[in-house]
């Protein structure tokens, strides 16, 4: 289990992580979702004892990372696949890592096999493609056979083949009952792999929910209804207390929210209105995400959440460099 309590990190004036409290439940894949620069990596670095929190704490199985004995046996992490010496072989990289935590050498061959790098294990890691480097990073994370795994943007920059591989691999690891915290700025990616979501924006926790609940609550589905009798239909629906708006994209069409498709059909029939279209408009996952994080921007920055400037504001505002 991973737990943070009031975790905060400030770099001078910039607050990267702001009073973050959450619990990552054991035995599940939890998605750590937020735009670039929202504090995901910094949070992970604090969980792993690399960065010191300005305030608050991060606990792994109830203890600060620094107090774990042979931490690789409890928690494995892939933060950056490039953190290997380019002139050292993949096997040598795993060998020194294994030595630090008294991990038997047999595990090296086991994890190399698990990620499919056995054939290239003695090649220097600098010659690896990003996909191979990512596999090596995962091998390193699995070295101590840990019950908890942390992955920071594992599919970033990978080709489709690599993405599919990582996705399946994570499902397999979760199937083995491991706790997985995986960060991403892509909600669709998370929807495929994670059962729970921690959503952050600008270093603050926006919501912690199951993926299904999050997508459902955030993407308010609407009903598009087409008719030549706009006036009558509008009147009938409003009379029944259903919010109606003109469709901005189409003439002779209305957008109905807060009800389901059947009720719209019944109300139209009762009013004797002929329909030309009746369809559900499902909001995309990105819409859901922008909807929710956009509100957060509005709330914290007091600025406008309208229009397309929402996206750069979100991507740029929380950006800091190390």
């Amino acid at each position: 289990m991973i737990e943070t309590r009031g975790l905060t990190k400030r770099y001078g004036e910039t607050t990267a992580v702001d009073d973050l409290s959450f619990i990552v439940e054991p035995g599940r894949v939890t998605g750590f979702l937020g735009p670039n620069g929202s504090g995901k990596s910094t949070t992970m670095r604090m969980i792993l004892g690399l960065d010191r929190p300005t305030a608050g704490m991060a606990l792994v199985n109830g203890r600060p990372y620094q107090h774990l004995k042979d931490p690789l046996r409890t928690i494995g992490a892939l933060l950056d696949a490039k953190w290997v010496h380019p002139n050292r072989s993949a096997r040598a990289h795993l060998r020194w890592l294994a030595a630090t935590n008294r991990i038997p050498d047999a595990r090296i061959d086991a994890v190399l096999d698990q990620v499919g790098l056995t054939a290239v294990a003695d090649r220097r890691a600098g010659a690896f493609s990003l996909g191979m480097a990512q596999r090596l990073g995962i091998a390193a994370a699995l070295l101590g056979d840990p019950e908890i795994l942390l992955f920071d943007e594992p599919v970033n920059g990978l080709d489709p083949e690599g993405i599919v591989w990582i996705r399946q691999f994570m499902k397999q690891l979760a199937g083995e009952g491991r706790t997985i915290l995986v960060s991403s700025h892509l909600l669709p990616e998370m929807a495929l792999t994670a059962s729970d979501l921690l959503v952050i924006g600008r270093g603050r926790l926006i919501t912690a929910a199951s993926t299904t609940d999050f997508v459902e609550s955030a993407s308010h589905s609407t009903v598009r209804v087409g008719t030549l009798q706009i006036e009558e239909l509008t009147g009938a629906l409003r009379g029944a207390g259903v919010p109606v708006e003109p469709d901005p994209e189409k003439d002779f069409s209305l957008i109905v929210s807060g009800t389901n498709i059947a009720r719209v059909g019944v109300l139209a029939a009762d009013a004797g209105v002929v329909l030309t279209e009746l369809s559900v408009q499902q909001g995309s996952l990105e819409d859901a995400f922008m909807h929710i994080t956009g509100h957060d921007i509005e709330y914290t920055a007091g600025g406008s959440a309208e229009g397309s400037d929402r996206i750069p504001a979100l991507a740029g505002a929380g950006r800091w460099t190390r």
Partner: protein
Amino acid sequence: MTLIAAERIKLVSTRSPWWSAGAAVLASVGMSALIAVTTAKDGQIGTVASTQLGYVLGMAVVMLMATLAVTTEYSVGTIRTTFMAVPRRGPALIAKAIVVGTLAAVIGLVAAFGAWAISLVLLPEFDLSLAGPDDWRHVAGVGLVYLIAAVIAVSVGTLVRHTAGAVSLVLVWSLMAEQLLQIIPGVGTTVGPWLPFSAAKEFLAADGSADGLLGAGPWGSIAYFALVAAGLLTVSIAVARRRDA
């Protein structure tokens, strides 16, 4: 011990330490050969101490190797992997200092005895036998000096983190700055005895009767050199523990 094993694997699994070792030995032996040849020509007297005049060159290469052992970890990011595997940064860095220092000592011994041996061959007319403790200090002492110099380089590398900065600092300090400070009138005589690399030189070169820079003899000088290294290592560990990796 596990940490030392890990650092040993790290050090020997890349090629640069071997290149450094070869270069350091070659530099020391080459310098010694040059000095031997000119000694013979000029009609000067060859001594055991004079066979080791080239130690500074090898020391520079060793310090370069030791600095890179740390700064490369910072530049490629393996220092973070290291601190994730070993959250107690003090022991992790001490293990690195021990491993790098040990390799430096071995390089020093090989270089020193190589330099002595080539002079022995080139200067058969002089008595270069290792007759007493002072002769042994002149030669084997190079191993000790390289070890301590490597610990200083590891500490500076940890403090500065960037390769270019750390290497410049280490080389300018050990090769130039101390000599320049000593020739400043007034200042030189005051600070001279407290310059660590001058103390190391004093330890290697002084004959048995000398009081040494600090008036404590050659062994006092090397003790001071070691004290400076230990102090720097302590400071660098304290800083590394506080800093974000």
